[in-house]
């Protein structure tokens, strides 16, 4: 009976997470288009609904009703699998992201997370890298030169930033003494981990931008050089899943991970703990601010070359991450 309750609870929570994330991603597209428009002094979507509020729904209808073309010479299995492989792992990271402390409604204790694994951060890292395989597979399976260049570029960049990303996450883990994201948040009730881990935060910003393919590191699409990059041969919803997974869901989820690691998760902002705001809202405010920061970077910077990115990753970011481990170790020894 208890097992059945757990299964039902987890299923319902997963469904809610997936559906809400899907809708949220749809509206994040609107947010991004509005933001990009105003940065370039144009209003963005304006016509469908008040201030373009229904534009994501119109876009979804359009993308879903498009003809789904599959070119003749593609590797069919990989071609179909790639779009799912980019999308599913990105949304699966949500399983370990804690949105707040457990609370009670109608005598029922609700935990606002699907599961509290003791290796949660490793799982997030693993699925984050897995979703990149979608891009690489898409580039390979398309059997066309531009997607292949895009996929190979992404693979080259992947090797660089994943190492730095892994080392950068060591600092908060050392301070919290746990891999569980919930325990990492609880360890930050006194002071956020951004204080000794500022170097790791820079590295994580770099790695998230590279992993989600946002502008300074968007070598895999590079629309000016590679037509559409790895999505050149895709149409319809198979095409729509890629930007949805990379630009919106992955950015959002990785922002959540970064908030948990460095900005105290659902802890209130400093000096604002007296405000009557529930912890889930605090969490979403922080994630939203970080997401907007990524948008801001995206619509500001030009693109790096692949060799510059790998150089940056290996020569700057990896030493920074290692130096951060030293700083945090000294901090733990001398301060606490």
């Amino acid at each position, binding site marked *: 009976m208890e097992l059945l309750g757990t299964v039902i609870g987890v299923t319902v929570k997963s469904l809610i997470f997936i559906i809400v994330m899907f809708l949220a991603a749809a509206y994040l597209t609107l947010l991004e288009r509005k933001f990009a428009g*105003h*940065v370039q*002094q*144009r209003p963005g979507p304006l016509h469908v609904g008040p201030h373009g509020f229904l534009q994501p729904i119109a876009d979804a209808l359009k993308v879903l009703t498009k003809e789904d073309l599959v070119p003749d010479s593609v590797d069919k299995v990989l071609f179909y699998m790639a779009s799912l492989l980019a999308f599913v792992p990105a949304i699966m990271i949500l399983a370990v992201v804690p949105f707040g402390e457990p609370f009670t409604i109608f005598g029922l204790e609700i935990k606002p997370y699907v599961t509290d694994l003791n290796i949660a951060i490793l799982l997030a890292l693993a699925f984050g890298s897995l979703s990149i395989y979608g891009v690489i597979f898409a580039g390979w399976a398309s059997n066309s030169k531009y997607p292949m260049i895009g996929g190979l570029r992404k693979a080259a960049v992947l090797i660089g930033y994943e190492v730095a990303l892994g080392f950068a996450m060591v600092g908060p883990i050392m301070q919290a003494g746990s891999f569980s994201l919930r325990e990492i948040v609880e360890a930050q009730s006194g002071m956020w981990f951004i204080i000794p881990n500022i170097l790791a935060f820079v590295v994580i910003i770099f790695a998230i931008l590279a992993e989600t393919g946002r502008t300074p590191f968007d070598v895999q699409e590079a629309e000016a050089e590679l037509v559409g990059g790895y999505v050149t041969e895709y149409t319809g919803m198979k095409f729509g899943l890629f930007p949805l997974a990379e630009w919106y869901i992955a950015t959002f989820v990785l922002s959540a991970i970064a908030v948990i690691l460095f900005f105290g998760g659902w802890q209130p902002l400093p000096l604002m703990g007296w405000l009557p705001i529930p912890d889930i809202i605090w969490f979403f405010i922080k994630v939203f601010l970080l997401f907007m920061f990524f948008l801001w*970077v995206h619509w*500001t*910077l030009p693109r790096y070359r692949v060799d510059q990115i790998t150089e940056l990753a290996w020569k700057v970011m990896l030493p920074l991450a290692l130096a951060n481990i030293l700083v945090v170790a000294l901090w733990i020894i001398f301060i606490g």
Partner: protein
Amino acid sequence: MVKIKYVERPELTNRERIFFVDFIKGMRVTFRNLLRKTVTTAFPFEKLTPPKRFRGTHAHRVKNGKEPPSFKVIEKFMDIDTGESRCVACYMCMQACPVPFLFNIEAVQLPDGRKKVVRFDMNLLNCMYCGLCTEACPVDCLIMTDIYETASYHRASCVLHIDDMAKRGIDFDRRRYDEPDRIWIDDDQRSKLWGQIKWS
């Protein structure tokens, strides 16, 4: 001999390198733009009036008593009534055109010896709107109007004929013949978007 000047790429100082100074400068620019007003026009609902010199769809001026002297000289040899296109089929526009085959001009000789223009077609699909034809026209007949919405569903409707052009010319002259010839007009919408322009 072309001289080449080699310029050293400016090196970043350590301060700029450590604190991402260029990055922060760029972010400041985009943030300032974010707070500015948008400069766009909601096109199908809100249309700007182009300046009079705008090079839009072609038109023919008609015989209405305002002809230049060059037309008065040749007038008695032509079969043109008042209100008809004042084209004399001199082929000067075709000579000046970079893509001459977009013109299809035909004229016949009537039994009384006068010349009549029976066909003046322009295929605007090949036109680049350079305006050389209007400068070449000796009788101030071929002009360019401020009409810029030229899209249509069939290629055939992109070809202008002499009657349409005469009608469009009458319409254009009625609207804007007396307007002083300035590069920009004192338009409310224009000044809303770009501010008032001072004329010397």
